[in-house]
């Protein structure tokens, strides 16, 4: 195990953490907005708001860790991705700012502003879409070198089916993860009406999720055969992931073990996410950038790893405290 692998594993784990917590957050905001449109807010708003407020800040910590880490460990990613992703990432940051301001304004005054809530819900769908573009770009074929500087070809990017497959997957995944979690959360709170509705959403999004996930594998075959082949070598991870998916859906269907259903879901996504990550090895950006030609020097790598471990030591207890205080505290959850 060399430092490069340790570095990327730590980063990939942080990214996974962000994807899980972020998905719950994004999806919850979308369901919140949706319930406003279809006039079901009396069922959902309370449970969603109670979850959203305390978790929001923590979500971003994971993202910040990831960004700092990837530039620290692999400085050349700043050159390739930093130059080409200025527009998509800026849009992402603006959407994040919209979400942040929603929480602030919601807390300090403009409670229940409908337009803002809708905008906020919309940002929950646009954010995963704009961030997931990075994964598509990393497959190669969209960045060309002109006069020694990387340039992103937007036309090819937006006419490529793979792009839209990834966008669709990110959106369905967000809604599925979020709905499954909120089913459990509402059930914890003893809110039967909200549980029933969230369970319905979770089951509704399960099928599209698996279709879009399969769609990506098909698209990848045409776009990047090399990566596709490596992906197929790890078929057992994806097969296991699929079995866990079936189990989650089965639990949801049978209206029992919502907690286990969500934990299985996390493992399901972890398997798929890490399977994808491992098969991406050694490329950070096909075909320009690998782990090895972009790695930072040893001294920096070691101090980064130390800093990340210290960060973990701070983050894990605070996460535990947060979960204990807000998410699994029976009194808080049920609004007492």
């Amino acid at each position, binding site marked *: 195990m060399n430092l490069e692998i340790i570095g990327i594993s730590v980063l990939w784990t942080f990214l996974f953490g962000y994807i899980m917590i972020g998905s719950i957050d994004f999806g919850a905001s979308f369901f919140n907005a949706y319930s406003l449109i279809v006039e079901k807010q009396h069922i959902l708003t309370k449970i969603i708001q109670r979850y959203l407020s305390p978790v929001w800040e923590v979500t971003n910590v994971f993202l910040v860790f990831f960004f700092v880490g990837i530039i620290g460990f692999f400085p050349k990613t700043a050159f390739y991705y930093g130059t080409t992703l*200025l527009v998509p990432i800026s849009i992402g940051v*603006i959407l994040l700012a919209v979400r942040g301001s929603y929480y602030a304004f919601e807390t*300090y*005054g403009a409670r229940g502003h409908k337009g803002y809530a809708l905008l906020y819900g919309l940002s929950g769908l646009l954010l995963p879409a704009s961030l997931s573009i990075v994964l598509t770009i990393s497959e190669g074929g969209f960045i060309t070198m002109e006069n020694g500087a990387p340039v992103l070809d937007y036309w090819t990017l937006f006419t490529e089916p793979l792009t839209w497959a990834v966008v669709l997957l990110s959106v369905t995944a967000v809604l599925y993860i979020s709905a499954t979690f909120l089913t459990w959360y509402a059930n914890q709170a003893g809110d039967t009406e909200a549980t029933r509705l969230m369970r319905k959403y979770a089951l509704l999004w399960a099928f599209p999720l698996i279709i879009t996930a399969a769609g990506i594998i098909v698209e990848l075959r045409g776009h990047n055969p090399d990566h596709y082949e490596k992906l197929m070598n790890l078929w057992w991870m994806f097969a296991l992931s699929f079995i866990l998916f079936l189990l989650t859906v089965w639990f949801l269907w049978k209206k029992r073990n919502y907690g286990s259903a969500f934990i299985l879901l996390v493992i399901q996504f972890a398997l798929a996410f890490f399977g994808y990550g491992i098969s991406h090895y050694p490329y950070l950006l096909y075909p320009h950038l690998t782990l090895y030609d972009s790695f930072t020097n040893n001294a920096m790598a070691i101090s980064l790893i130390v800093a990340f471990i210290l960060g973990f030591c701070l983050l894990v207890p605070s996460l535990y405290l947060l979960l204990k205080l807000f998410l699994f505290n029976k009194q808080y959850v049920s609004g007492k």
Partner: protein
Amino acid sequence: MNSPQGFDLVDEKLTNVNPLLAMFNPAMPTKVTHVVVTAYMTAAFVLASIAAFRMLTGSKHVYHKKALFFTMKLGLIFSIATAVIGDFSGKFLAEYQPEKLAAAEWHFETHGEAPLIMWGMLDENNDIKYAIQIPFALSILAHWLPGAVVTGLDQFPEDEIPPLYIHYLFDTMVTIGMGLVVLSLIYWIGVKRGWAFIHSKFFLVLSVLSGPLSMLAIEAGWWLAEVGRQPWILRGIMRTSEAATTNNQVDLMLMLFCGLYIILGIGTIVVMSRMFKRNPVEQELKDREMEKGGVQK
């Protein structure tokens, strides 16, 4: 950025990297303390502004009087600390970034017994006009001694000299900083001696201005630090033009972010003013006393 260290540059490649050495570079002690202390100073004066404003608009509540006294005292302490650390920053600059100090002071020729130049203008021949000159002060600021030689801009190639308008940024920062020391000192002595003058309308107006002015001073100082380093982004190693992105959409993104901040700024003002109008401090204090009374019974 200002005094990079902790690595060696061999054939455009970084070697011998030492992150701790890089973090604890010569610029670090004065920069960090100056930024932290001025932040505390600004916070104190912003709160003093609010208290003075409420007193001006007619509130007689003792809360505001206490707040003004407390924050002015803090402002005094931190503005004096700012000035002291600012002096050390001058000595740091003279040692490690003499071109920044020279440009900020329009110090064109290297010589001793250098005066500190405040404000003024430059004519076509770079002669200084209408300026206030404080004899020996620049030499003292740079090297403790009135006779010390201060490096001038003549020691640097034309394309490594920062823009000369940073002089005004420096003057803005120093003038406001000194003004705030004087203001809070007068207030403090006034309270001790019972001067009626410090309760006058005029003095309250000055106190209201202290918050916005300290923000202006921080902004000027920030610009001085960053513009004064130009054309370098890493002094002596990398120029800003070499570090800039090649992406063409930077302007568009800048506009987008400006728009975002304008919207957020307006939103914040609306929400905050609504919040305080609905729940003024006086009302909250009254409610609290009521609550306390209730508990005691």
